[in-house]
């Protein structure tokens, strides 16, 4: 059964790499409707491998869209928050799709592969909704295709990631940061994008669905450690990359989420939701997604734990949280009212009735030495 068909039937989906994950000893868990590896050996080992060497993640559950035709750039510029006009050929950018109220539908990366040909990578849980939303605005003459079922995708991340690429593809240069390249390798079309979700150097690699497992295994044989969603989550949280559905949602704007850098309010013609953002910018924010770090030792912070003032009044809940494997400290994100959102403000996080003090700190929690 095709993945798009099974999605309609509400069953759990599997990437083309699922049999390989099981062979590699992964613990599989449902995530965003997909049966995915949460870890192979240990989240901490996998996390550390990415920070110090190289790890590989199956990201085939994510969606791959293409927009083609004259004016593809201009149309996407009217739909997404970032400025597509700034992209040269082969360049990519992080951008956000908003609803008409300025709330986040999805965050994504788009790459200008060629003039009039844009490649987009969207979140797994949002493939259908994004496609429907984009189709609603699609003008005559442009082609929008969901090729999510045709591609296997894997993220190779860490200080040694580039060396692994050079070993597998001698003579094929990696694109510069945020860039993409496509080429034909022994008759197969491959794509590589110098982006990621870990805060490390690295890239995201795309092959045909059928060859995905073979490529994943080749990267492992070259020295990449297979890593699951557990490490992916702790890595991204250490560098404060938001997770849609947790840190981003239709009820928060990207300005509240601290993503104003990726919202070009000056661009001509605006974009869906831009008027709301402009009003919010003019009137001032009521709340802000802040980085919280425990001031002492404590039970690991997790999403949905309550956030309280020092006087005991509940003001929010965590959107994400983890005991940071790199820092060995509790770290979390939460939307806090502005008067509690200043750097240095103290709050308490409630864990099963016990309170642990946390301080608002500068993002990100973790920076490369």
């Amino acid at each position, binding site marked *: 059964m095709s993945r798009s068909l099974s999605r309609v039937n509400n069953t759990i989906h599997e990437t083309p790499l699922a049999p390989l994950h099981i062979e590699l000893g992964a613990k599989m868990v449902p995530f965003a409707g997909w049966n995915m590896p949460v870890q192979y050996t240990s*989240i*901490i080992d996998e*996390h550390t491998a990415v920070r110090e060497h190289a790890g590989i993640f199956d990201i085939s559950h994510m969606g791959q869209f293409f927009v083609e035709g004259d004016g593809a750039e201009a149309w996407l510029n009217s739909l997404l928050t970032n400025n597509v006009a700034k992209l040269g050929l082969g360049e990519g950018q992080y951008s956000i799709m908003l609803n008409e109220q300025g709330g986040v539908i999805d965050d994504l990366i788009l790459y200008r592969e060629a003039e009039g040909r844009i490649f987009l990578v969207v979140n797994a849980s949002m493939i259908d909704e994004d496609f429907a939303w984009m189709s609603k605005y699609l003008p005559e003459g442009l082609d929008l295709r969901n090729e999510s079922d045709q591609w296997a995708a894997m993220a190779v991340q860490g200080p040694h990631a580039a060396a692994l690429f050079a070993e597998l593809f001698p003579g094929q240069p990696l694109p510069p940061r945020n860039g993409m390249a496509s080429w034909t390798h022994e008759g197969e079309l491959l794509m590589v994008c110098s982006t990621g979700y870990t805060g490390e150097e690295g890239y995201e690699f795309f092959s045909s669905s059928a060859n995905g497992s073979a490529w994943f295994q080749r990267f492992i044989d070259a020295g990449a450690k297979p890593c699951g969603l557990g490490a992916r989550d702790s890595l991204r949280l250490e560098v404060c990359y938001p997770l849609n559905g947790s840190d981003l949602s239709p009820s928060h704007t990207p300005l509240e989420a601290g993503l104003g850098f990726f919202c070009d309010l000056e661009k001509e013609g605006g974009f869906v939701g831009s008027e709301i953002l402009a009003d919010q910018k003019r009137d001032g924010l009521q709340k802000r997604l802040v980085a919280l770090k425990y001031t002492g030792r*404590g039970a690991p912070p997790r999403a949905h734990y309550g956030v309280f003032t020092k006087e005991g009044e509940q003001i929010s809940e965590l959107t994400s949280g983890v*005991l940071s494997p790199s820092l060995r400290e509790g770290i979390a994100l939460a939307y806090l009212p502005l008067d509690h959102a200043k750097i240095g403000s103290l709050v308490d996080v409630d864990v099963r009735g016990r309170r642990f003090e946390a301080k608002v700190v500068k993002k990100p929690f973790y920076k490369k030495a």
Partner: protein
Amino acid sequence: MNVPDHLRYTSDHEWILLDGDTVTVGITDHAQEELTDVVFVELPENGRTCDAGDPVAVVESVKAASDIYIPVAGEIVEGNIDLEADPSLVNTDPYGAGWIFKVRLKDAAAVDALMDASAYKGLIG
């Protein structure tokens, strides 16, 4: 999988060591391997009186928090404070330095109703 013969077990993957009127409780090798990477252990309060099956401690990995249930009724007499400094003892020495708490039994016979090693081996396959 290490399942020592001299211990008793529960279907929640706890082990129980009987010593006079007191038992020591921890989680099994199988349980620690399933959890992996124990990063925090919330110990029960000393002096608390509990019924069998009450959740009294929490063992947390990077990804999840798991309740630990008291397998037999009694009074909590001690928690393993070494776990506050080094929770990974639960992974590295689950039947020794990674013990979690001690209970003074209300009824010593309650231990007899728990699984022995061969029954627990059957459970975890």
